């Protein structure tokens, strides 16, 4: 009797509900995803394919076709031989200039902005909120308005046209958004942790370095990605505040692509463009993994 009732109870649907692979929802979802992917990847495909072709093959005009004869000559030329005016050492000079600009700018701006954000949240002083408002306001003023005044300021300071001048400019312009970023992150760290550290006798720097920093790796990675991409991709400040032999990679790329001597070498231009975009891409993929790790786990109730 017990067996009978058991078997009758077990007929009909049981366990996990089966999922249909071709449901309207899935067709819609993956359809849109595929369209978006093609939209973004097609230009990259064209660039990489063109850069691997010789000029005769480029002239045929079939830009979507893969190269018949693969050649790396355009890449070599873009890196080391392409001419801008009298210089014929390609992108390599711009690359090293960009490195010299980006590395100190990123480090200095993140260091200052993180201390700013920490102080604005945990060591409020009279007028700290007004200070913060003014700082954020700065990020809404178009850069172009400030170009000429900054040229004068840098000239008076004696660093116009030097790498350091550009580094100072990048550091200052990174300040509003980075301070906002760090302030908001530090505000999510429980205030009681800060209070406990004060009872434990840690001071301003002690709390910053020993309590806040170790808990803030994710936001430092975000700031790093933001700054490296921003500064590496900058064109305007690079062309305004430096001299030709100090031009960053983006300016150098522009000059290579736009220099009109004889034939337009589309394959070299494409290779040069991919090379320039490579650095932010690498930074993104390497550090992106650190994005999601929750560092604050275990500090509070959980």
């Amino acid at each position: 009797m017990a067996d009978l009732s058991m078997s009758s109870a077990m007929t009909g649907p049981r366990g996990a509900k089966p999922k249909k692979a071709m449901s309207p929802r899935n067709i819609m979802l993956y359809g849109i995803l595929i369209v978006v992917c093609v939209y973004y990847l097609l230009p990259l495909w064209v660039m990489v394919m063109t850069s691997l072709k010789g000029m005769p093959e480029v002239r045929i005009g079939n830009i979507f076709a893969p190269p018949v004869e693969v050649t790396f000559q355009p890449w070599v030329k873009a890196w080391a031989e392409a001419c801008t005016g009298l210089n014929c050492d390609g992108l390599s000079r711009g690359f090293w200039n960009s490195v010299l600009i980006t590395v100190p700018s990123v480090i200095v701006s993140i260091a200052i902005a993180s201390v700013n954000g920490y102080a604005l949240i945990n060591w409020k002083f009279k007028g700290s909120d007004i200070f913060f408002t003014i700082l954020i306001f700065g990020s809404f003023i178009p850069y172009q308005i400030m170009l000429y005044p900054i040229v004068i300021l840098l000239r008076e300071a004696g660093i116009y046209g030097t790498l350091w001048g550009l580094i100072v400019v990048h550091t200052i312009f990174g300040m509003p958004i980075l301070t906002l970023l760090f302030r908001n992150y530090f505000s999510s760290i429980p205030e009681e942790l800060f209070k406990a550290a004060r009872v434990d006798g840690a001071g301003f720097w002690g709390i910053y370095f020993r309590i806040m920093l170790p808990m803030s790796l994710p936001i430092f990675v975000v700031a790093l990605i933001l700054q490296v991409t921003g500064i590496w991709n900058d064109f305007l400040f690079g062309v305004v505040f430096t001299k030709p032999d100090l031009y960053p990679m983006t300016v150098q790329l522009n000059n290579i692509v736009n220099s009109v001597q004889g034939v337009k070498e589309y394959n070299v231009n494409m290779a040069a463009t991919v090379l320039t975009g490579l650095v932010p891409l690498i930074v993104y993929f390497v550090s992106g993994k650190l994005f999601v790790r929750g560092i604050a786990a275990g500090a509070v109730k959980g």
Partner: protein
Amino acid sequence: MGNSIEVKDLTLNFGSVSVLKNMNLDVAEGEFVVLLGPSGCGKSTLLNCLAGLLDITDGQIWIKGKNVTWAEPSDRGIGMVFQSYALYPQMTVRGNLSFGLKNAKVPQAEIDKRIARAAEILQIQPLLDRKPAALSGGQRQRVAIGRALVRDVDVFLFDEPLSNLDAKLRSELRVEIKRLHNQLGNTMVYVTHDQIEALTLADRIAVMKGGVIQQLAAPLEIYNRPSNLFVAGFLGSPSMNFLKGRTVDNGRAFQFGATKIDLTGYEGGAVLERDDAILGVRPEHITVSTTPLAGPSIPAEVEIDENLGADSLLWLKAEGTNMSVRVPVEGRVPAGTKVHLGLDIPKASLFDAKTEQRI
């Protein structure tokens, strides 16, 4: 014994908002004082002022006979335990315990000794090399207490330390804190909104509201003889029944609706004749009878009958007023029954409705 903590005329304003008003509080050495009140009453703020985490607007704070009004938190001779535990997540338990000592440049041998002692008292020896993330809530709070313990201070400040724990752990740790206090004899100031914690732990309770201490007394005194309506209503669950009426017969009786209640045996000041008075009676100080009582009794009707296991609660309506009465399980009365209520007047409290103060 002298006073461990003295708060003198403490005032704290945030801008134009007055958070603590001219507060005075003396805590004797080795005493366990609980600051109790609803959220926003200033109890945690007062604790933060004691710890030096908030700058006060006016007044003085003395700890162990020293004026610490302007002293840094670490120089006040206090240890503090927070609601969210506030353990440093990147450090091991040992690192958490030693952080403050290293900042104070205590020699390593002494640090090891103190950690060993604290770990033994709190029974956290096996956890010393774990990170906070690998600990349960109860273990984390134990470590947080340990962090105050290793500082070797006379005054412990607790800021709602048990509020994040589940009910079972809460009662376990409550007993443990009491045991710790008996064992160490430190002065403890403990903030909570949980009246059970307050009643069980405290030598004295300070009930706060609106930045003012309403009553500061031993738990039973506060429970039995609340000094005003707020204190009376805040302590006790379910809260005290308030009967609105007036005192008559030159203060010898209380007129509640049609019933005249004899006030003989009431402990308090001169009752006099007042037009607006409130008689407060706790649910356990009311007897319920289905037959008329000998003396004057209040007619009522049972609306809901709640079984709590150990005893049961009757929710009734008498003269338009909602009342609750605690009765033994065998004394349960089904809903809808008409009953008669008798009040235990010596245990009742009488308030002036205008001043809200106890008479």
